[in-house]
C-alpha cells in the first residue's frame, strides 16, 4: 500500500513538489521569476568571489604576512604612477574558467594555514623554493598570462625604455621568452639556488612542447631586480 502524501518524509514531498507542474503560476511568471532569481544568485556569487580577490582577504591569514612584507617593498606596491597590482592581479586569472580553477586550488592555502605548514619564518624559508617553483610553473605554462593582463610586448615603446630594458625585451620577443623568464622574484624574495630550479621547471615544460627548447632563463636576473628596486625607491 502506497504511503499517503502526509506520511511521506519531507525529502520525498519536496522532490514531488519540485517535479509537479505548477498550476498557480503562469509560464511567463516562472520565466521572469527564474530569470530574476538567476541574476540575484549569479550576482551574489560573483560579488562574493570578487571579495576573495581583495588584498585584505588574501592577507588576512597569519602565514601571508611574510610575503605581504616582501611585496610592499616592490614596484608593484609602491611606484611613481600610483598604479598598484594587488595579490589577485598576479595570482588570479581574469578568464572565468581559469579563475574558478585557481579559486578551487586555493583551498589548499586554507588547509596549510590551519596545518601551520609555513607558520614560522623557518618553515616559510624551508618551503619558499617549492612555493616559488609552483608559481613559476603556472606562469611559464600560461605564458605569464596574469602579467599580460597589464603588460604587453605589443604596447611597449622601446624608445621610452632604458637601453638595457629595451634590448632585453627585444631579446625576449626574438627568443619567444615570457615575462617570468626574467622577472622571477618581482614581488617576493627569491630562495637561494632559485635559477637552477627555474631551469628545471622550464626544461620540464619544454619536454612537453617539443621545439620550444630555447635558452629561456635570464642570465642577469639579479641586475633586473636591482634595477626595479632602485626605481621603487625613487
Amino acid at each position, binding site marked *: 500500500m502506497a504511503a499517503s502524501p502526509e506520511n511521506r518524509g519531507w525529502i520525498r514531498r519536496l522532490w514531488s513538489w519540485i517535479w509537479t507542474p505548477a498550476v498557480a503560476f503562469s509560464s511567463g511568471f516562472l520565466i521572469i521569476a527564474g530569470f530574476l532569481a538567476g541574476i540575484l544568485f549569479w550576482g551574489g556569487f560573483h560579488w562574493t568571489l570578487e571579495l576573495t580577490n581583495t588584498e585584505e582577504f588574501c592577507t588576512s591569514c597569519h602565514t601571508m604576512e611574510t610575503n605581504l612584507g616582501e611585496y610592499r617593498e616592490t614596484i608593484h606596491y609602491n611606484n611613481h604612477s600610483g598604479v598598484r597590482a594587488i595579490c589577485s592581479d598576479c595570482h588570479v586569472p581574469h578568464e572565468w*574558467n*581559469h579563475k*574558478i*580553477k*585557481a579559486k*578551487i*586550488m586555493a*583551498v589548499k592555502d586554507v588547509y596549510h594555514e590551519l596545518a601551520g605548514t609555513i607558520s614560522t619564518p623557518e618553515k616559510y624559508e624551508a618551503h619558499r623554493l617549492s612555493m616559488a617553483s609552483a608559481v613559476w610553473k603556472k606562469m611559464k605554462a600560461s605564458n605569464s598570462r596574469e602579467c599580460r593582463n597589464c603588460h604587453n610586448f605589443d604596447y611597449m615603446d622601446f624608445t621610452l625604455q632604458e637601453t638595457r630594458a629595451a634590448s632585453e625585451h627585444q631579446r625576449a620577443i626574438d627568443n619567444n621568452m615570457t615575462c617570468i623568464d626574467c622577472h622571477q622574484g618581482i614581488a617576493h624574495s627569491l630562495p637561494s639556488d632559485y635559477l637552477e630550479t627555474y631551469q628545471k621547471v622550464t626544461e620540464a615544460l619544454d619536454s612537453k612542447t617539443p621545439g620550444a627548447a630555447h635558452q629561456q632563463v635570464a642570465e642577469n636576473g639579479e641586475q633586473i631586480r636591482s634595477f626595479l628596486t632602485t626605481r621603487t625607491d625613487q
Partner: protein
Amino acid sequence: MLELLGTIGGNALGLPGILGLALGMMTRRLWLGAAMGALIGVIETLLFAGWQIAHVEALELMIAVVVGICAGSLGCLIRRIGATA
C-alpha cells in the same frame, strides 16, 4: 589532484556545465543532450586556447567534454522528468 578538481570545477561552473545543462534541457533525446554538452566542451576549450589547436591541452579538453556530456545528460533527464508534454 587539486589541479584536476579545479579543472572539473571550472568547467562545471563554466560553459560546458551551464550551457551544456541548458542545451540538454531542450531535448528528450539523451544522446543529443550529451552530444551538445560534449560540443560545448570542445568549443569552450578551443575558446580558452585562443582557437589554436596547438594550445589545447588533452587533459583539459577531455575534462571539458566529460563535464559537458554529464551536464547535457542531466539537462535531458530534467526535461524528461520535469515536462509533462
